[in-house]
């Protein structure tokens, strides 16, 4: 089981690195916002793996809060884009 946890963590870390590549390179602001949303989703998965690894069930509350914050952040980014904020593309 330890090997499985380490493998899952390393795969999710690699996924975080790839999403970070898109955050840096993304040609426009909506691309970066989508990559940040992917960030929050992957971090939720990492928190779930950490809950299994440490045996502390309270990590699920952290996952709930991260899900809420990611959803509200993407809604806020979308409102900001539609209202015509500054863009760099």
């Amino acid at each position, binding site marked *: *089981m330890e090997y*499985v*946890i380490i*493998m*899952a*963590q390393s*795969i*999710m870390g*690699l*996924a*975080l*690195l*790839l*999403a970070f*590549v*898109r955050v840096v390179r993304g040609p*426009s*602001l*909506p*691309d970066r*916002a*989508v*990559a940040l*949303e*992917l960030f929050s*989703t*992957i971090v*939720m*998965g990492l928190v*779930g*793996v950490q*809950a*299994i690894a440490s045996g502390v*069930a309270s990590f*699920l*509350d952290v*996952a*709930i809060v991260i*899900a*809420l914050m*990611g*959803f509200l952040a*993407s*809604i806020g*980014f*979308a*409102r900001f*884009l*539609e209202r015509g904020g500054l*863009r760099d*593309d």
Partner: protein
Amino acid sequence: MIDLLKAILLLGGALLMLLAAVGIVRLPDLLTRMHATTKAASLGVNLTMLAVALHFSDVGVVARALAIILFVLTTAPIAAHVMGRAGYFVGTRLWSGTVKDELRPNYDPLTHELKSGQEPRQNVERPGRDEAPE
């Protein structure tokens, strides 16, 4: 048996997240990137939370894990829809191999007016949109 199932769920969830990340790096367009991330990553979170529910097998923990799954399944399409709408309004370029954009001939990005494409002729060509209707 439970351990094997947990291992399969954890690795499947992690691989789905890796698939979403590869998709967001490799795909050429905002909409195709969203198509990769919003489905694969939310399914990865769901598999991981199922593994957590199997690992603890306690009523409160299972209820919280199912609540997370329900929340993700509810909010991921809403967030994707809102982001895609905002991206289209901002005017991000579509991929050069895009076959069909059905919104382009019928939609006016300045006034946010959407036509059905079946109006009678005088309604389409009415001059002076800014004038007050009589």
